[in-house]
């Protein structure tokens, strides 16, 4: 069992009367890669800046390894930050940028030289030590920012959307590189992003935030496959939410639900069910099966959009009652019926057991509005 490294408790912060963080509790474990995920304005950046010491909570405490840091200024916190636009010192060379933190610690010159060289080697920039930041590409600047932050061997590295300024391919490379660094250094990473794909692929645990409140805390798999509420379900990944009505609860831990007039048997969820209750059936696009119109199974609809993605074929299907369904299928070249034309009638089904059930939420209507906004 990993130990708690940084513990946030009851953190509350208001800006101009608006609650940005609402009595938030979070324990970050030693050595983990944890991601704060949420739409802009959800409080993730404020939370990170609070850990770094640039913002102060109105209420609550931050402790690191049992030591209270709530009112410690940033320069005395044993953690470092990789800033969104890198914030490299423009008047200093790459070497001096990386050496800055060690100079502040008044380390001997030999040690500084050695550690800076090690840090630059780690991000493969040994040959760029004499350059100025503006002579580097975006990806290289990003590496310098990382080297500068890890050279002090912090207990915790905070990363504020560090990859958002890079193009797609470079992002993927840097994601892999960051994971490698984190494994090699054994430093705890707190990563902020609004990109759910990035969050899922990199993290040990994901914190889904909305309006300063944690919506869900779990492994990427838990967050994706078993979202705690409608917000997480919609925010993380593409989602089909079908309206369902409980037909009857069976004795064997299953429940029969009426979806589009089909009686399907699902695993019993861990919330209370009564007969006739409305609920949401969550199916990811890759759970959906598109069948030929003469099949008996499924719900009738027609294809309105086909999108070739290389490894998958994504389609949008309108059911006869107007519901829009997203489907993402892997190629099966042997299947002649696979490639449907636009407007072609099909039937939509799914594999039972891959669904996830969510209860109706009182605030559903509002939530939908805020997701769109």
């Amino acid at each position, binding site marked *: 069992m990993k130990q708690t490294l940084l513990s946030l408790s009851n953190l509350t912060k208001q800006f101009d009367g608006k609650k940005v963080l609402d009595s938030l509790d979070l324990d970050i474990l030693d050595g983990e890669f944890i991601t704060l995920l949420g739409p802009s304005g959800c409080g993730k950046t404020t939370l990170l800046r609070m850990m770094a010491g*640039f913002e102060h909570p109105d209420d609550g405490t931050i402790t690191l390894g049992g030591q209270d840091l709530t009112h410690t*200024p*940033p*320069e*005395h916190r044993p953690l470092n*930050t990789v800033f969104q636009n890198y*914030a490299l*010192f423009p008047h200093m060379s790459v070497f001096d940028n990386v050496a800055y*933190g060690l100079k502040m610690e008044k380390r001997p010159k030999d040690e500084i030289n050695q550690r800076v060289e090690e840090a630059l080697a780690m991000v493969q920039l040994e040959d760029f030590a004499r350059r100025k930041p503006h002579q580097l590409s975006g990806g290289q600047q990003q590496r310098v920012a990382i080297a500068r*932050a890890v050279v002090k061997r912090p207990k915790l590295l905070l990363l504020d959307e560090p990859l958002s300024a890079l193009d797609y391919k470079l992002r993927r490379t840097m994601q892999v590189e960051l994971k490698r660094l984190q494994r090699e250094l054994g430093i705890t990473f707190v990563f902020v992003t609004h990109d759910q794909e990035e969050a899922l692929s990199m993290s040990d645990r994901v914190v889904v935030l909305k309006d300063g409140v944690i919506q869900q805390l779990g492994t990427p798999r838990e967050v994706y496959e078993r979202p705690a509420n409608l917000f997480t379900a919609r925010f993380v990944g593409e989602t089909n939410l079908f309206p369902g009505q409980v037909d009857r609860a069976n004795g064997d831990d299953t429940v029969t639900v009426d979806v589009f007039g089909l009686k399907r048997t699902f695993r019993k969820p861990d919330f209370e069910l009564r007969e006739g209750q409305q609920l949401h059936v969550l199916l990811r696009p890759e759970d959906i099966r598109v069948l030929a119109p003469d099949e008996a199974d499924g719900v009738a609809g027609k294809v309105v959009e086909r999108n070739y993605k290389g490894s998958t074929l994504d389609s949008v299907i309108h059911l006869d009652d107007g519901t829009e369904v997203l489907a993402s299928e892997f190629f099966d070249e042997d299947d002649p019926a696979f490639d449907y034309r636009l407007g072609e009638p099909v039937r939509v089904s799914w594999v039972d057991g891959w669904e996830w059930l969510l209860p109706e939420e009182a605030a559903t209507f509002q939530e939908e509005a805020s997701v769109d906004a």
Partner: protein
Amino acid sequence: MSRWLPRGYLAIVYGLLYAPIIVLVVFSFNDSRTGYEWGGLSWRWYESLFNNRAMVEAMWNSLWLALSAATVSTLIGALTALALHRYRFRGKKVLNGMLFVVMMSPEIVLAISLLALFLLVGLQLGYVSLLLAHVTFCLPFVVITVMARLSGFDERLPEAARDLGANDFTMTRTVLIPVIMPALLAGWLLGFTLSLDDVVVSTFVSGPSYEILPLRIYSMVRVGLKPEVNALGTLLLVFSLVMLMLSQWILTRSKQ
């Protein structure tokens, strides 16, 4: 044909701009005593200029005044700009506006009010009164120059420095000042030139104990135009050019 029209126009504009300066430089080497005849090459006006003790003294006075006024106004101006940039406080807009009032108000008004103030407090007119006056009119220019630079300043830089272990003072010394250095230099140079060639305010607030160059030239010219003035003008021109080149060099270097 049509391509000669803009070229001719440009030639006329630049001719008008530079003709007087060229005449001044050429005639500073003129051996003839009168200003409108060519009498051959000579350094004599430069010699007589440097033999003119009052003139040399006025020159040093002016340089010293410009140096000190530029330095003091850069110090105060930079701190003012930082405060206006960094903090939100009551009356910030008023303070900001007041800078522009000083900059836009006619110099004569500033001159009279400064003189009235100095007389009121019983300040002896001389170096101190000149310095105070020059700092006053240089200040807004420095503040505006530095604020322009600060507005493009990445707010994450001080945070990065703090994050890496620098306290506020060290951060200012190692990050903030180096980054805004070009603006500080530009502001300083602006203040230096403004101070060096000021006549109106200086006429009012200078005393017999401290004569400065523009006023010396002014009184010299009133008696009659001596070719020494040409030599002096040429020297000032060379000096300004050197200063300009220096500032450009510093600016391009800091961008690298």
